[in-house]
Structure formats: structure tokens, C-alpha cells
């Protein structure tokens, strides 16, 4: 069964140097169970192919039903050096929410 991430979670992204961080927060416990199981590092790496050129780190925060991802080498050098329109990774959260999970 296909589940759209945007139906079960919201997200916020920011920058940490040349890495973008994306925190995905499930709306309820059922949604958190789904992302805990299916929103894997591999899935995120594949989803951001062509955007993230480094490794992906994944950290669970069950206390707020969230999973935090660090996407390395994503921001074109980061901060003031980057020529990207979205040099601070503010849109990575929305881009993450395009994902569909097979559950």
C-alpha cells in the first residue's frame, strides 16, 4: 500500500555548513510507527539523488515523533559560498514530503 509522506507528517529543514538537515515529524503515533519502519537512510538517499552528494545520517526522536536527517554535500558549499538559489536548504523539507512509502 502506498502512503504519501505528506499525509502523515510535516517537516522543517535548515543548514549545517554544507549539509542540509531535515526533521520529519509524524502527526500521530501511527504515523511515527510508519516512518520509523519505512523512512530509512537508503530511501532518503535515493529520494535525494542529484541533490545530496554525500552521506545521509539518520537520528530518531521518538519523544516528539520525529526523525532527523543530515544530508551532506547538499548546499553547494553552504552559506555564503554557495551559488544556489536555495543555499540554506529551506526547501529540502518540502522536497522530502514528496516521498511515497510502500508500507
Amino acid at each position, binding site marked *: 500500500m502506498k502512503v504519501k509522506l505528506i499525509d502523515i507528517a*510535516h517537516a522543517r529543514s535548515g543548514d549545517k555548513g554544507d549539509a542540509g538537515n531535515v526533521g520529519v515529524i509524524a502527526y500521530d503515533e501511527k504515523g511515527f510507527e510508519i516512518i520509523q519502519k519505512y523512512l530509512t537512510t537508503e530511501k532518503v538517499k535515493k529520494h535525494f539523488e542529484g541533490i545530496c552528494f554525500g552521506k545521509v545520517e539518520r537520528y530518531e*526522536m521518538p*519523544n*516528539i515523533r520525529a526523525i*532527523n536527517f543530515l544530508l551532506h554535500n547538499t548546499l553547494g558549499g553552504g552559506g555564503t*559560498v554557495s551559488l544556489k538559489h536555495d543555499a540554506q536548504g529551506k526547501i529540502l523539507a518540502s522536497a522530502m514530503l514528496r516521498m511515497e512509502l510502500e508500507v
Partner: protein
Amino acid sequence: MKEKIRIASGQGFWGDLIEAPYWQVTRGPIDYLVMDYLAEVTMSILQKQKNKNPKFGYARDIPELMKKILPACKKDNIKIITNGGGVNPIACAEEIIAIAKEIGIKGLKVGVVLGDNINDRIDDIISQGCELNNMETGESIVPVKDNLLSANVYFGALPIVDALKKGADIVITGRTTDTGLTLAPMIYEFGWDPKNYDLMAAGTVAGHILECGAQSTGGNFLGDWESIENFAEIGFPIAEAYPSGEVIITKHENTGGRVSFDTVAEQLVYEIGDPKSYITPDCVADFSSIKLEDLGNNRVKVYDVKGQKETDSYKVSCSYSSGYSAIGSLTYSWPKALTKAKRADEILRKRLENLGLQFEEIKTEFIGYNATQGPLSKDLDEDLINEVMLRFAVRSKDKYSVERFGKEIAPLILTGPPSVTGFAGGRPKPSEVVAYWPALIPKKLVEPHVKILELK
């Protein structure tokens, strides 16, 4: 000891909503107003201002703001803490005293935290064994050392506590962690032991929730943002802190926005790495320990926060000059908007190549088509694309190349594809690239200290 204190965020960054601190002071009771005026490379901008005039080097918005809010702050006993002192916190404090005198305020103490600026001590620090390697890449600072524009240590809450203990009504700092601005009043008012790391973490987490202003009260919110009311007068967050370490995040009643589990949770995950290891000068906070409870009515309780001992190092934020960049843009319209924009991009690149210009990087993006989500963008039948903005950016160590590029945008209007518009504002000018260099320095090599300026 107060049974609770209300700490209000007035600014999340340099360039934030100008009216926000004024609303915080006038739309409800608060005890402290905390404001962050420093982004990563702000110090370099302030340093340039100070180089031109030794009386400058602090956030220029502060004097204007003080004129507006000092009378209310004096009357309601609201203390102000800000890192807007930049590279000249003394000059900032002196200006505040001058303004207070001018508007008839009597009895004001401004505490200044000093010691964070290590720009003049770099060689000395390196000779003491601290190499200031880039903490993200491991690179040596030696190749960029001579291009350094600023170097500031991130102090935490304790120097601010010192200033408050010395009677400061207003505390002006240079580089301080945003979280320290919010934690300091809690330590001071509740007599917290800095070695109680769970309490340090509780104040740190409250500081993280406050540090981006309205980003925790419904701004930039990817949850149910459409139902949020009155963005125009969005209420910035207020941390209602208790001696136990419990904090209730709220906002003034007659303001817009929303404080809910969802809005606060989004801010909690903003710009964090490993949640168990949120490192500050005051503690290492565990963001995976935080409990949130939505109490309704725009009140969210934050509790059960755990922390560990702080590290032996301070983070240093340096900036250095690293070339020039410029951005040009043109808008192409239907029919075949994308084809036209792509062809213009080809033409421009060929012209720059023919001119023999040297660039470190050239980046083309098509805004309205795929600039923000790249390969994840939905592919569209070109007939459905109404318009596309070609955004063309260059970076080079050679200023001439960047300047010469700026003169190649306008000609495209008459010498390239049709249906083009959106050229206003003259030639894109080279802008200096100020790059960021984060490093670590042993705490024992830096000494914060407080100076008090008084208006009797």
C-alpha cells in the same frame, strides 16, 4: 526568587521583523527581552563598518529600537539581553546610554560582555598549540589566515549571568550563543547551579525554541499553516520559565500566529545534527529527552529535558574573504519559455568563454521550473509553463571576471531569444564572498569579562 519569569524573543536574526520587539514589550507582561542580531558572517560586515568608523561595529537597528522601548522597559522593569554588540559592544552600550540620557531616563546600568573577539590574537593562539583547523573539513587555517575578516568565540550564558549579577538592566554582548541569551536569565533569577546539567539543558532547549523568533509560533510552518490567523502581527515566542526547569512556550494573547505541539516540534528539529548531542558552551543537551505537552490556548509545556557536562572547548566563528560573486536574472515567457531560457543560458556561457573570463563556479537555475527541488520537480509539458526565470550565478577570485559578467545580462534582451523581460536594477555588481570558518578553541585560552556602564 520569582515564581516564574517570562523571557520574550524579539529578533531571530539580523533582518528580522522590526516591529516584533516593540510588540513584545507592549502587548503583555514580560520580564526579559532577548534578541539575536548575528548571523554567521554578520561580524565581517560589522568589522568593515568599524574599519570605516571606530564608533560603529554593532547592529545599527539597536539605537532606534532603544529609543522606542526604553521608557516602557524602565517602567515595567524589563531587562534586555542582546548579542547585537557585534565587534563593538562598548560603542553600542555608550550609544544606548546617550539615548537614555536624551530621553530623560534616570538610573540605567548597561553590562557589556567582552573577550569574544580574538581577531588580533590568531598567531598567538596558534603558537599556544591551538591550530584552529576547520572543524567541518579538518583543513588548516594557514592558507586563509591572512584573509580573515573576523574571529569571535561563542560565549554561553555565564558571562551574561555575571553582568546581571553586577546589576545590569541591559546586557550587550559580542558573539554569544542564542541559547545562552535565554538560559542566562533563568540561572540568574532561580539561582541555578551551572553544574546542574539537566537545568542547563532545559534553559538551552527553551533558547533553541526562541532563537528563530516566529519560526516556533507558526512562521515557516509546514503543518497546518493555512489555518493560522493574523500573520501580519505574528506573536514572537515567550518562554515562561519555572525554577524546576519546566518551561511553557507561549505568546501574547493579542498577537497572531499559533503555539502548538506541531509548531514547537518543527523548531526543535531545526538546524540540529545528532539530537543527543546538542553542544553549547553551557552543556550538551539531549534533544531526544525533551517532552512536549500541548496545554491548549497557545501554551506548550516543555519538560523532562536531560543534559550532560559541557565540553572543554568554545566554538569559534571566523570569516574570511574568498572572492566575488554576482547573480543575474531574466524572465522568459510562453511560448516555449524553458527552451528560450535554456538557449539564453547557452549563449551567455559561450560569450563568457569567448571573453576568456575565469570562474570558480557558474550555476544556472530555472526558477518556476525546477530551481528549488531539482530532480524531484514534476516534469511539465512545456506548453503549460507560463514563464521561467533564468538565474545565472558566478563566483571567482578574479573581481574583473565577475564585473565583466555583469555587463553580459542586459545585452541578452536584444541579442538573444524573445519574450524576455524582468531586467531592472542595472548590472549585477560583484559582491564580496565572505566565507565562514568554524573552529574550536580550548576554553582556558579565552577569558570573558564584564564591564558596566552606568547612567545615574
